[in-house]
């Protein structure tokens, strides 16, 4: 299935390779480099590249290309999803998934790849099981390891795979029994010049961290389950009960997992938390322009908007900017032509404003296209779709677990056109 994997950085260096069948020469990546060169920006490299003898399927994540070499017909979604799983596992193990981290932990990376695939077929990909096979490095553990000489490898085999519930290992024991659920929603929206919503939808997920002894059977009830469209669940959720009663009933895996993801696409349900008043104009003569942006709250249900960042991809001819912000810091990167205005927490009383002039390359014509604004934000304690968990019940075990639900709203692909 997956013959080989190459990790390549944006400078076109292969910094890790792994072959599950026979060794394939690095030269196969030349086709990839060719495509990379043609695409210009790393984002634009097409995910599937056909070469005379192989297919190269790649994903680009965290400035690394994961390039897999395929020799036989496979479902493309399978490979793409698997590569993302590899990246997620690395992220999960090392906290981030960057070239330097991978190089530092090259041995664990190899161990992981060896366990995740055998002969090109996925073997163990659940982070639960992997973490029992290969323990993730922690500062404490690496210190203990250096002193005692013990290793990162679990000495016993994961037992869970033989239990009747394949995603949960048997004989789990905790002194503190706790179950936490994070409801995370991302708003994908495009707002047009006049402030009207072109399109908006919410992608939501419920991530869980469950540390409960034994074989608990949980039931999660929502206040308003009808809001959710396009739900998809972790395999542990009993689909029949969702269909009939709209409750989530499941025996949870141990540790962190994604319980469900959903989608709210009905436009009138998607509240847009902020508004942006912007005016970016370029003058016909004088090679200059003006910029004036104000951000204010719109539908935030009384919760503060935090981590507000506005980034603007300026046209190529904008040489420098001379701007003053009433709140936060702004920085213009002259090579990538991206203006980043980091506002932080949105002040409701005095709305943050960024104002000033842009200077263009002299002699060049006025840019045709106005840049668009990418917005990033975060609202704690609020699920913008209005989804709310009403209760969590546990059956099958005697103890009383500690329960908690956290809501958070983030901006996904949130874009304002000018």
């Amino acid at each position, binding site marked *: 299935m997956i013959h080989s994997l190459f990790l390549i950085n944006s400078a076109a260096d292969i910094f890790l390779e792994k072959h599950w069948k026979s060794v394939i020469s690095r030269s196969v990546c030349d086709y990839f480099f060719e495509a990379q060169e043609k695409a210009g920006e790393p984002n634009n490299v*097409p*995910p599937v590249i056909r070469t005379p003898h192989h297919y190269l399927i790649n994903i680009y994540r965290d400035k690394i290309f994961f390039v897999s070499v395929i020799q036989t017909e496979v479902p493309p979604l399978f490979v793409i999803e698997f590569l993302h799983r590899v990246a997620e596992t690395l992220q999960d193990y090392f906290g981030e998934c960057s070239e330097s981290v991978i190089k530092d932990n090259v041995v664990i990376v*190899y161990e992981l790849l060896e366990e995740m695939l055998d002969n090109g077929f996925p073997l163990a990909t659940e982070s639960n099981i992997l973490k029992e096979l290969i323990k993730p490095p922690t500062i404490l553990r690496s210190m203990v390891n250096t002193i005692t000489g013990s290793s990162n490898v679990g000495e016993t085999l994961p037992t869970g795979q033989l239990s009747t519930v394949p995603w949960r290992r048997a004989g789990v024991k905790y002194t503190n029994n706790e179950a936490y659920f994070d409801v995370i929603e991302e708003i*994908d929206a495009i707002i047009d010049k006049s402030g009207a919503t072109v399109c908006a939808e919410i992608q939501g997920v419920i991530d869980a961290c469950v540390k409960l002894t034994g074989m608990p059977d949980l039931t999660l009830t929502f206040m308003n389950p009808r809001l959710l469209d396009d739900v998809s669940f972790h395999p542990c959720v009993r689909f029949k009960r969702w269909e009939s009663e709209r409750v989530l009933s499941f025996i949870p895996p141990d540790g962190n997992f994604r319980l469900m993801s959903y989608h709210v696409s009905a436009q009138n349900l998607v509240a847009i938390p902020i508004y942006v008043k912007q005016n970016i104009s370029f003058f016909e003569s004088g090679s200059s322009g003006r910029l004036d942006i104000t951000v204010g709250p719109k539908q935030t249900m009384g919760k503060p908007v935090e981590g507000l960042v506005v980034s603007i991809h300026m046209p190529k001819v904008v040489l420098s900017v001379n701007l003053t912000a009433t709140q936060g810091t702004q920085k213009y990167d002259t090579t990538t032509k991206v203006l980043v205005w980091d506002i932080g927490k949105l002040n409701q009383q005095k709305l943050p404003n960024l104002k000033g002039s842009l200077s263009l390359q002299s002699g060049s014509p006025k840019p045709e296209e106005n840049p668009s604004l990418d917005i990033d934000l975060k609202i704690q304690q609020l699920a913008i779709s209005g989804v709310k968990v009403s209760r969590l019940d546990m059956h099958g075990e005697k103890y009383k677990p500690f329960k908690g639900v956290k809501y958070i709203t983030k901006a996904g692909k949130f874009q304002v056109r000018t």
Partner: protein
Amino acid sequence: MPYLSSEETVKELKRALSNPNIQSDRLRYRNYILRVIRSMTQGLDVSPLFMDMVKASATVDIVQKKLVYLYMCTYASLKPDLALLAINTLRKDCADPNPMVRGLALRNMCNFRMPGMTEYIHQPILTGLKDKASYVRRVAVLGCAKMQSLQPNAEIDATIVNELYGLLRDPDPVVMVNCLRALEEILKHEGGVVINKPIAHHLLNRLKELDSWAQGEVLTFLLRYKPRGEDELFDILSLLDGLLHSSHATVMAATLRLFLQLAAAHPAVQADALEQARGPLLATCGSQSRELRFAGLCHVQQVLRSQPAQLGVHYKRFFCGYSEPAYIKFRKMEILVELVNDENVGLVLEELRGYCTDVSPELAQAAIAAIGRIGRTYSEKCLDILTGLLGLKQEHITSAVVQTFRDLVWLCPQSTAAVCQAVEGCEESLQDSEGKQALLWLLGMHGGQITNAPYVLESHIDGLKTEMSSVVKLELLTAAVRLFLLRPAETQDMLGRLLHYCIEEESDMNVHDRALFCYRLLECGLEETRRVFQGPKSDPCMGVLTGCPTEPVNSWASKFNTLGLLGGNDVVPASSDTAASDQRGHSSQGDALAEAVDEQLSIPEEGQQSPGLSLGALLSHEAFERHWLELCVTHREALGFQGPPSASETLQAALQLVKIQTLAFSRESTKPWKAYLYTHGSGTLILAELLQDESEAGNNSTSLVVSLKQLPENKMAIQEFVSVLRTVLHTLTKDRSC
């Protein structure tokens, strides 16, 4: 650490590894081994250390073992003789009490890719297949496949194959899936693993235990199984139902593919499956990962081929984000074009107009081409936008717009006047040969309506010496001759100069010969030239009305969820019709004659005074269109029926029975719904348009309206036609309500 050359590093490591002091200190020893591995992954050749590494493998430390095995697998094929020394240790490990060590050793032993390995691994694999730990069995099963690939020409070991088929019943789901994978590889030359009824049912029943990857694979294997009867088929499908909603795109796509293929004979089931999977499929198109989004879009494109109308309401999901990669934007634009209907056309065009000024010229041109494609149905709105774009005076935009104009004029003759007006004055900002060709074609074909055509042509002829592209020159010759036929007084002089230059000074043989040909043709007389050069001015098929017919699901189901769908190398913006249109100017010249013959044939039929209606001669699309544009409506009447009475095909068949020919009709669920009919009756030709338009004012808004045109006029025939049409519609409506 000071930089050491590779040789020195190897020497230093060798010294360290063979140092007994270090060997006795477990921790230091392992650190050195770690350094060997690091150097190896950096591409350094550390194969001289093989002996020392083999020694290091005899340890109880699992991490150290893993590291050494990793090293050995890399270099075993380079040093087969030394690798044999390691095998003993490995075989001993295969009998270790710790299942993890057993599995590890077995896996790595199978990974030694060197000849002659088979005899050493055969026995451990057979033992491994019967191991009590599932971890070892998993490794052993795949080991069988690896063993086979070591000696590709050897005969297939029947005992192993039987053993593997037996292990399909293993309690561990991963072992089961690995068996399938291994059998598939071993039996590659015999067509892969055989899925018979017991195996298929066994797999289906265990699907729920598997992880998502295995589910995806098993579903793909199940494609080979053909259920015996309908009962079995529907049992299988109902087992799979839930998987259509899987959170993993892989499983969803694999399930959908299986559904589509199993239910090949049941279109209703297929439609239902597509309906169920629509949500998950659309969710994939909005996924966080851009690669998944791309794959999702490719699949949506396939679904659109059969269900164009159903996704219309979701068009906003296919609007491009600013920071999305180009390959996604191209796909989204292609999809948007397919999704256009009366309700969303305004917004979609508005959106596409935004893309036309994109920084990337390829994207901008693709967006313009997309507007052009929509223009085939909604020409007015698109022409406004395209004309507006010309005002930007951007080179690549103008070129793309002119090319789009040419295609539009060719397919929708009603837009000619507007195009001819718009195209004036845009010649200055045209630089590339594609755009020039398009402009020249327009000048030649419709020069009569473009006031400054001769001047534009003249400037091109004057600049001939600097023109590099021979294709442009060929087009220029054709255009000049055509314009000469239309406006001889203004063009004669420059045509002469052009021909003279091309015949006397041109070095390109193609151009030279074409010029000679034109010259000799002109010598034969104007009539002859006209017959050769002036073909039809628009495409003979009314692409507008028919649109693309919906294809049956089965035509693409087999390609669903395969690599071919994502189309290898690059995503080409839809420019296939541009290439085709280049040919048109020349290829259509012969058609004029054929058309003339057609008409002659149809005249005597019309002349017959036959009572009632008759099918008469078949009317070609362009003949119909010509008549339709020439004639005015003689009769209009609301028929009082709610919408098209039934499936368009049924309607067509029914009308055929009463001798009314259907020329074209729109897709079933589109609004407004239109159909064009014609018939011959009482010596006249009757053309009819059936229109169901909700936007039309009036109380009886959803009723079907018929407009008739006639040649020559005959009131009786019209009455007769309308009454026949009423009867047909009435019968069909009654049928449906039963």
